[in-house]
């Protein structure tokens, strides 16, 4: 494929169903590929294992976000209400004993910051938004969000070879194997 001027993204192969995709994924995993992915219109259970993916680290992001929220809320409430400008409100204390009154806000900000951590953590992990992608140039790839099941192996993968990879995909049941090129 070195004859084309365009850079190669990789191979895209279609599979007939979730179960064929699943089995194909196991084989590609076992073949030791790293830069590849399965595409399906819905999340397929167990495919993570079949692809050899680790558990998402997102919960740690969220945990940190939550802690930040809790700390922010506590600091915001305590510092302003007790340290900076204590006001006398219904004979309530202006010291550490007043903290129970801040619990609702501490809770809410914990959730809010966790939510943002989830959103932005996710976008970071899945590297979205990315509006342009070589796969979108594929004529069949649009079915990945409808009823198509695909596997794409990237040319960046050290194990990638133009012919060997194509054969592998054919062997494990891939149909309509397509070479996807990157756009300029």
């Amino acid at each position, binding site marked *: 494929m070195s004859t084309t001027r365009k850079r190669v993204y990789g191979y895209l192969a279609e599979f007939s169903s979730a179960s064929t995709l699943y089995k194909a994924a196991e084989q590609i995993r076992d073949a030791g590929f790293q830069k590849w992915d399965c595409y399906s219109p819905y999340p397929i259970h167990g495919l993570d294992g079949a692809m050899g993916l680790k558990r998402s680290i997102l919960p740690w992001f969220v945990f940190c976000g939550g802690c930040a929220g809790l700390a922010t809320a506590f600091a915001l409430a305590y510092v302003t209400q007790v340290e900076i400008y204590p006001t006398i409100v219904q004979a309530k204390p202006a010291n550490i004993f007043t903290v129970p009154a801040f619990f609702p*806000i501490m809770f809410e900000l914990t959730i809010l910051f966790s*939510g943002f951590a989830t959103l932005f953590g996710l976008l970071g992990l899945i590297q*979205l938004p990315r509006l342009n992608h070589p796969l979108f140039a594929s004529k069949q790839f649009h079915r990945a969000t409808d009823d198509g099941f695909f596997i794409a192996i990237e040319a960046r993968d050290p194990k990638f070879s133009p012919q060997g990879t194509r054969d592998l995909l054919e062997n494990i049941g891939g149909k309509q194997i397509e070479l996807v090129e990157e756009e300029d």
Partner: protein
Amino acid sequence: MASTTDSAHPKLQSSVKLPVLEREKLILSGRSYHWITERICGVVENRQPFLWWLLFLPSALIAMIGVGGGLTYLVSTGVGVWGMSNRVFWGFDITNFVFWIGIGHAGTLISAVLFLTRQNWRTSINRAAEAMTIFAVICAGIFPAFHVGRVWFAWFLAPIPNANAIWQNFKSPLLWDVFAVSTYFTISLIFWYLGMVPDLATIRDRCKPGLRKWAYGIFALGWRGGNRQWSHYEMAYLLLAALSTPLVLSVHSVVSFDFATSVVPGWHTTIFPPYFVAGAIFGGFAMVLTIMIPARFIYGLQDLITMKHIDNMAKIILLTGTIVGYAYLMELFVAFYSGAIYEMDAFKYRIAGPYWWAYAAMMSCNVLSPQVFWFKACRENLWVIMIVAMCVNVGMWFERFVIIVTTLARMFLPGDWKTYSPSAVELMTFVGTIGLFLALFMMFLRFLPCINIAEVKWTKLESDPHFDDIEEHPDPGVVKIPAYQHELVETKS
């Protein structure tokens, strides 16, 4: 996510044959993935039925007049254009706020709580329910935001460092409310939007190039449906569900604190948080039914939103309605048990005082009407369900009216007693928010996938990667169980 990694430890496992229940079909008629895509995207892509216009245009008009006009008049002239007085300082405003925020709760409940409890039947209704949450919170937010006397100073509520070196009162339930409702709105929006990204990608991929494709493309963020994305995405969705669940409980609890932390007889009661949450779920499900039943017909989604869904929701309404009824009675009991004359009178006047009709409406709509759902025939009759749902909507509105208005109109000192009645502007604004809600919902149906396409596909039996894998599962009754359970299982068998 199934336990495929368990195969690493074969010694710890053995097989045992258990009777299995057949997995229930949530999608009828064996519809294909493509059919699902076609059907749901069709709602967005096809010309809208006449009925859509018939609903949308009047709703939008009402929203413009009621909310747009009503609020412009309110802000330019003063809160006095509403019916409140120096006795009853809250009326329709906070009644409507609590009503709408309650409606929102069912959406979160369906999407988050049912997700966590693996109630797969939620998939075909959760998107619409979440949209309902968003729109209900928008409608709700209008009231507390604009009921204040000087809305242009509402930013005083935000903890912004300022030259006056003055801060908010973090002990105020109202400030808690500000935080709770804004958090609720934000989290619900994130949840809703994240859930929609794969479906937006579906629509994007079906669109002809052009503005629409471009717009959906932007909002789909370049979603490709790769499993490396799905993997994180599923985790994010789970986390958001886990965050939303306590959040939804907290929001209505905090709303109830507005009342429960006061000294006002009839408000000052510890039962309020659970009572409000149950009421919110109750009212919310009624609203979901009110909207989904007609939508199901209009767009022919009977195979996706099945009688099973409706039956489940009817049962939830029965359950929560009964909880609410229990709360009403407990409230009365506590008041009369207290021996405090102000408490006793507050409830006496609720039942038989100037607003007895509101109390009667609340009781009959909320406690009595759902009792028909004990009967399967009623749960199967869409007309009955629709009527009960409407009753509950009305009843839950009256519940808030009863709590707020009847209490304030007859407080501690008889010298200040005066009844409240809403002004035309107030009524108009309330009707306007109903219009706004419907218009937004219509817009949602028009432009966004009203059912979670990806999740619905996922509930099909053949979506399981092992569905047609006889080798893997020679016998569907055989499951692998961990070794530490062997003993127990063996002794049993």
